[in-house]
């Protein structure tokens, strides 16, 4: 189990280690600047955040909700501090309130987000989970996602913490429960096995 660190906590003496994500270098050592789990290797140290809003990054796939259409572009809520800007080419029949799976084309230095290639999502259910937990929902090389999709449910995961689920009522409910479990147990080990047990009905999801 990795150690939980808080902002300002000293992670290593001296400045030899490379200061990775969530850390900074001061005169006498490397410190954390985020509340999260410490990842210490021989040559580098970083902190994986446990909380926090989604920060848009170029190349990410996110699920957005269209807030407004103005001229030939849509303003899309991507659950971040910043709205996404999606130019439309006239063939996209999108309106406010639509849910889309989009790519982030670019993010500039003042975090202006440009989106591209929207894919409209119909029906189904939209679920919001903390974006910092998404890597666990996807799993190592998509292993967790594969596990969740075994039930035949249509599942899209946006890097911004939105999950789109479509299928029959029972499967959707079960998938939702599994996702809640992942969020709750995200910082623990052996997560894939726990979820596997749950989906195969050997656990009721209450055990910690």
């Amino acid at each position, binding site marked *: 189990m990795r150690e*939980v660190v808080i*902002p*300002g906590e000293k992670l290593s003496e001296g400045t030899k280690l490379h200061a990775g994500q969530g850390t900074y270098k001061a005169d006498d050592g490397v410190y954390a600047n985020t*509340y999260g789990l410490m990842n210490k290797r021989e040559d580098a140290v970083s902190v994986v955040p446990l909380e926090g*809003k989604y920060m848009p990054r170029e190349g990410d796939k996110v699920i957005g909700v269209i807030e407004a259409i103005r001229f030939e572009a849509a303003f899309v809520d991507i659950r971040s501090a*910043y709205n996404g800007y999606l130019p439309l080419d006239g063939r996209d029949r999108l309106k406010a309130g639509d849910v889309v799976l989009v790519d982030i084309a670019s993010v500039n230095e003042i975090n202006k987000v440009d989106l591209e290639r929207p894919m409209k999502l119909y029906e189904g259910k939209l679920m919001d989970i903390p974006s910092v937990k998404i890597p666990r929902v996807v799993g190592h090389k998509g292993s967790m996602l594969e596990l969740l999709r075994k039930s035949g449910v249509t599942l899209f995961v946006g890097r911004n913490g939105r999950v789109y689920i479509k299928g029959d009522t029972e499967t959707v409910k079960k998938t939702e429960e599994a996702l809640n479990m992942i969020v709750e147990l995200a910082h623990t080990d052996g997560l894939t096995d726990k979820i596997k047990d749950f989906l195969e009905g050997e656990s009721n999801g209450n055990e910690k």
Partner: protein
Amino acid sequence: MGMKSDIKLIDAKGKRLDGRAIDEMRPLKIEAGVLEQADGSAYLEWGNNKVIAAVYGPRECLPRHKASPYGSTLMYRYNMAPFSVDDRKRPGRDRRSTEISKISEEALNKVVLTERFPNSMININVEVLQADAGTRCAALTAASVALADAGIPMKDMVASCAAGKAGDHIVLDLGKLEDNFGKADVPMAIVPHTGEIVLLQMDGDLSPKEFKTAMTLATKGCMMAYEEQKKALKAKYKGGGKK
């Protein structure tokens, strides 16, 4: 501050009205992540003070004219509930809460890495549910935990505590009677690792020597508050699940 009374604030044995030693803090308890809707939150009890802090953001800056391309705008709101004091506090902003909000905002601005989120804002709302002297310190201590809980990057935490003069002694963390009938109150907030002072005020009169003693004592108090902040944040993700 400075009200006249016959109360002896410190007895012959050097004990205070509530039985504390002069360098003893009231019991402090913090819990992180107590609100569902907020991005980050904290609940704090410090003696009879009860404070709840909620952080929202970074999010779109409203009103727009407050947005800055150089960084996120912090908006700190200190508010006392009408039922937080005996009698009744008239609800809403007043001179005192505006002042406290301003100085606390400036204190937190020193540690939050606002440059990461240009053109956005971060709202910090602190509600005082029960007041018993030292609420600005309690509020700032809770706000700092709530900010960390919201996952907002910061150089360090901000820990806060007050010292003051009751009777003829310099004491740590004034209680209500000591605040009302004592001679001076020095609230202070520091950045624990560098020892940088980010908030320092004084109400009442102290000699330069007394002031220095009070500052040393308050620094000690801040470090104790910091230990509690650390405990609260580490406890949230202890063991198996979030609980």
